[in-house]
């Protein structure tokens, strides 16, 4: 038992939920919800620090996991799963997020950077998925409530799949229960209408189709194309407006930089221990102790004042954020810069990145002035970051192209949708941005700052990766 024992209540229950009304759990599910591993999800906000942009976004992975379990059950009913398939997908849905760490996706990146892969047998697996699998397999409370066979099936379902392909589609794929819940839930708590779609109608038009070669596949009724278009657009808008909100990108990068500085420069062992995954139970026990609030309160505490990581974490705590000082499309830079910046976050590129950020810091200091954090080297707080922004059509092609419309000869969604055929697909772009501790008071000052630095930063990015490279 990792988080201390407490009596479980063995009864089925109905839980009120603002998105789905009542979420009904059977006795086994109810007991799983009462375990320490599941209750811990109350300490992990679904959207990390998005509440700094959308104050209502305080919901957690706890209620999201309940919601995914509920939606998975509805999908299982719509697609006429067997009772055993339904039982397993609901259990897997309930437990799909158990391995998340503080600030979810930021911790995923940090785990990938600092895990001790030499001690792992599964070399290519994502670390947070390995943590989920270890928890499901070895946690004492979970082991008591689930047979070994069920635990193995759930781990397989959350990984490469188990049973019919359609069963896995409910847990992982373009129409999975996770997306269906988070679109509605994140929209609701952020107070936006971007992620809204017609969930009951979507379930009406999903079909389980026998593959003549064996197995069952998930397809959409030809009358459901508009419902699917609405779902795809909902996902696109929520991604662009909430998940990829410009301030949220900055807060995530600040967090990640703070973690890197805490481990590499400040050498804070308690923090390093959260991310040096080695596959052991000891690691899991430490890891599970941490949630979002505890992390911030602990490492932004006065006892760490003067440390590089403290400056950033305190900034996040008080919403004193780095500012976007530069943005350009990656394909406007020299081809060498494009390739190098695309993989600038990889651990092996750290020295090169530090060197680049030092140059950028010097440029910003000379051109505008950097806010100082005592005697700390200001280049630690200049962050270069690149990411891809896909058009709705590109997003639909990558993520939804595997959705088939169930015509006599099944066709891909993109080919069947008149709306998606007409969308200009040239709107995708990979952006490179620079964040820095600068001060401005008005939008005009902000514009002046960016205009003043634009040519110089472009020149640095263009030339930096060409020097000495073939």
């Amino acid at each position: 038992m990792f988080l201390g024992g407490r009596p479980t209540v063995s009864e089925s229950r109905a839980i009120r939920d603002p998105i789905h009304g009542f979420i009904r759990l059977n006795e086994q599910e109810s007991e799983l919800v009462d375990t320490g591993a599941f209750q811990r999800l109350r300490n992990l906000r679904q959207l990390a620090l998005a509440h700094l942009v959308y104050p209502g976004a305080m919901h957690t992975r706890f209620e999201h996991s309940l919601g995914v379990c509920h939606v998975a059950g509805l999908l299982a009913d719509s697609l006429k799963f067997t009772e055993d398939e339904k039982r397993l997908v609901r259990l897997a849905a309930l437990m799909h997020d158990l391995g998340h760490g503080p600030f979810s996706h930021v911790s995923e990146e940090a785990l990938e950077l600092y895990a001790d892969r030499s001690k792992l047998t599964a070399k290519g697996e994502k670390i947070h998925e390995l943590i989920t699998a270890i928890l499901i397999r070895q946690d004492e409370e979970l082991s008591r409530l689930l047979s070994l066979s069920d635990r193995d099936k759930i781990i397989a379902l959350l990984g490469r799949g188990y049973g019919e392909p359609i069963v896995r589609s409910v847990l992982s794929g373009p129409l999975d229960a996770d997306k269906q819940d988070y679109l509605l839930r994140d929209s609701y708590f952020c107070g936006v209408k971007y992620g809204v779609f017609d969930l009951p109608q979507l379930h009406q038009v999903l079909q389980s189709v026998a593959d003549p070669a064996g197995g069952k596949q998930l397809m959409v009724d030809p009358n459901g194309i508009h419902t699917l278009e609405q779902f795809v657009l909902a996902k696109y808008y929520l991604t662009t407006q909430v998940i990829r909100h410009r301030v949220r990108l900055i807060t995530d990068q600040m967090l990640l930089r703070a973690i890197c500085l805490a481990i590499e420069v400040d050498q804070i062992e308690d923090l390093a221990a959260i991310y040096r995954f080695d596959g052991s139970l000891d690691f899991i026990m430490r890891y599970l102790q941490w949630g979002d609030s505890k992390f911030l309160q602990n490492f932004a505490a006065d006892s760490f004042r003067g440390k590089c990581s403290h400056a950033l974490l305190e900034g996040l705590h008080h919403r004193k954020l780095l500012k976007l000082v530069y943005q350009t499309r990656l394909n406007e830079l020299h081809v060498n810069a494009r390739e190098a910046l695309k993989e600038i976050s990889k651990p092996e590129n750290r020295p090169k990145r530090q060197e680049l950020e030092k140059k950028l810091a010097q440029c910003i200091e000379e051109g505008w002035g950097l806010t100082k954090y005592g005697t700390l080297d200001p280049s630690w707080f200049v962050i270069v970051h690149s990411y891809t922004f896909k058009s709705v059509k590109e997003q639909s092609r990558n993520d939804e192209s595997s959705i088939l419309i169930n015509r006599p000869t099944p066709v891909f969604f993109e080919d069947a949708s008149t709306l998606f055929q007409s969308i200009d697909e040239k709107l995708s772009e990979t952006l490179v941005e620079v964040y820095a501790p600068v001060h401005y008071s008005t939008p005009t000052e902000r514009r002046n700052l960016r205009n003043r630095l634009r040519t110089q930063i472009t020149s640095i990015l263009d030339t930096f990766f060409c020097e000495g490279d073939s």
Partner: protein
Amino acid sequence: MDTHDILLLAYGAFGGEIRGKTNLQKKLYFLSTMLGIDLGYGPHYYGPYSSEVAAANTNLKVLGYLTESIASAGSYSAEGFEIARHDFRLTEDGRAVVESKKKRFPAEWKKIKGAGETLDAAGELNYMELSIAAKAYFLLDQRGGPAKTADLVRMARQFGWSVTQADIERAVGFLQYLGLAEATGDVDPGM
């Protein structure tokens, strides 16, 4: 070396162009099978599909390394499932990056080039024939043991797609050439 790099070198090996999204998926599937690389392929109605490969291809386009053109449009779903054919071609920048990748990953380039040449020599299949070959091989591979010609033919017939006997023959011949199927003598006369 990641999917981005592998895909760039694959374009280099296939002469800088891949015609059709299905061809892209299936050629990369066979390449990954021949080289023993995991590119995230999973089961799909029309044969193995990897969203990782699809995403990497989009990124190459976004970075200005590929151009995309729609070669044909209009419904011909009576004969097949690809309504509009999307062709991808390396740009000048793309070719420059491929050249730099060849120098950076010489051993991997040699393998990918070799596999690409073997795939080309196995015959220029249309997207439907490639799908038959890929799906049949994927399903048999998951069951374990070598794929037998007769099993492949039987399986391909079950797909229910609008394919001719000649399509199936070419698909099976393709797999045999690649060494992914063993010839057996128990194929029924209908073949």
